[in-house]
Every structure is written in C-alpha cells, then in structure tokens.
C-alpha cells in the first residue's frame, strides 16, 4: 500500500510539472525553482507534512520534498539554536544530498565525456 501511495503522490507532482511545461512555457529551471520554494512554504503553512505522511517517498523525492527538507531543517534548528538556526538549518538538513551531487558530478566529469544524441 505504501508503494501505491508513493506512486500516486509522486506521479501527481510530476504530472503537474508536465502540465506547467506544456501549457505555461515556463522553462524547466523555473519549474524546479517554483517546486523548491513551494515545498518550503507548504511546510511552513503545515500543508506538506500530511502529504509526506501519506505519500512517503512520493512526497520527499520530488523537488517539493527538497524544499520540505530545507524548511523542516530550519524549523528544527531555530527550535534548538534560536536565531542562528535561521541561517544554518536549511543547508544542514540538505547537506547530504548537495555533497553527494557535487562529488558524483566531479567524478563523472573525469570519467566520461559527452556523447552526441
């Protein structure tokens, strides 16, 4: 059941993205920015947590989930450290992903080269 819920939640978030690409001519980069920022504010207003509770990875894997992690991290850091947490919370919570992506990208750039389509 968990898997079906993840499939539906993730699928809907992606289908909305596709609708935005085809209908609004928003560039992919703008859509990604919109998703992350939306994730942050949806968590701030308490809307995203129920979606995560129901959809699991279906809600955390899309980029709204990245925004959700940023917001959750900052929420926790502010509760624990006060003012300084405003600055440290977001990056701390997402550090694993950002570090991983930088590492894999640099390794990939050394090991491979682009290929024509």
């Amino acid at each position, binding site marked *: 059941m968990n898997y079906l819920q*993840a499939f539906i939640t993730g699928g809907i978030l992606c289908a909305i993205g596709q609708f935005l690409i085809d209908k609004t001519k928003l560039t992919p980069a703008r859509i990604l*920015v919109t998703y*992350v920022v939306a994730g942050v504010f949806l968590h*701030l207003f308490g809307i995203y947590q129920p979606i995560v509770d129901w959809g*699991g990875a279906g809600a955390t894997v899309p980029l709204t989930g990245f925004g959700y992690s940023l917001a959750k991290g900052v929420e926790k850091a502010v509760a624990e450290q006060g003012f300084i947490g405003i600055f440290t919370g977001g990056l701390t919570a997402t550090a694993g992903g950002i570090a991983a992506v930088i590492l894999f990208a640099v390794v990939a750039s050394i090991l491979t080269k682009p290929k024509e389509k």
Partner: protein
Amino acid sequence: MRMNPADYKAYADSFSPPSKLWRNMLFAFVIGGGICVLGELLLTLFSTLGFEKDECATLNCISLIFLSALLTAFHLYDNIAKHAGAGTLVPITGFANAVVAPAIEFRPEGMVLGVGAKIFSIAGPVITYGIIASILAGLCYYLGGLL
C-alpha cells in the same frame, strides 16, 4: 507582412504542432511515480538495515542522486527524459542530472573554470532560492517562537 507582433505570434502558433499534453502527462506520471516507488523501496531497505528515520531519508536521497549520476554518465538519462519530461525533471534525480550534465559537458574548459564553475549553471537557482526561502521560513519560525 501587414501584421503586428501580437497577431503574428498567434498566427505562427496556429502552424505549431500541438504538444501531446495528455500523453506527456501520463508519461510524467508513470515514470515520476516509478522513481518515487524506487525511493520508497530504498527507504524500506535502509530501515530494515537498522538506520534511523532521518538517516534513511538522507541515504535515500544520496542513492537516487548516485543512480541519476550513473545514468547521466552513461548517456542514458537524457534518452529517458526525452519521453518522461517532468517525470525525470521533478524528482531529485532531475536535480542531480542538471548538476552532472554541465560538469561532464564543460570538462574541456578545465577542472576549475569548466567543471567547477559551470557545475551549478542549471541547478544553481534551485539552491539559491531554496536557501532564500528557507531563511524566510526560519525567520517566521523564529518570530513565531518569540510571540
């Protein structure tokens, strides 16, 4: 031509083949949903291995990023994305692809000014505005806590 720009745009659009919206949305749904199911599987796996809930989330994120980097390096991600559209763009794998692709592409310009500088040329805005939004959210939490 006796036409103003607004009229010309509408006129030109009438010749544009329509993008197959429903087909595209279905593909995005299935492939994007599929990536999330994979994420859910990984979460279960890490949790069975005895990791804490937060650790599972981070490991899941790193695993998917690794997978995406691997597919990108083997020239497969762009071919899947051609059909999946937002299905491979919106998940964290799309973010990873947007970082790995310029890193590979700009390697000939050197490790520093090529790879190093261009690595976030597509995905940079996501981090920039994600952090800005998180700072605003943090400010709200902080001020909310003072009340």
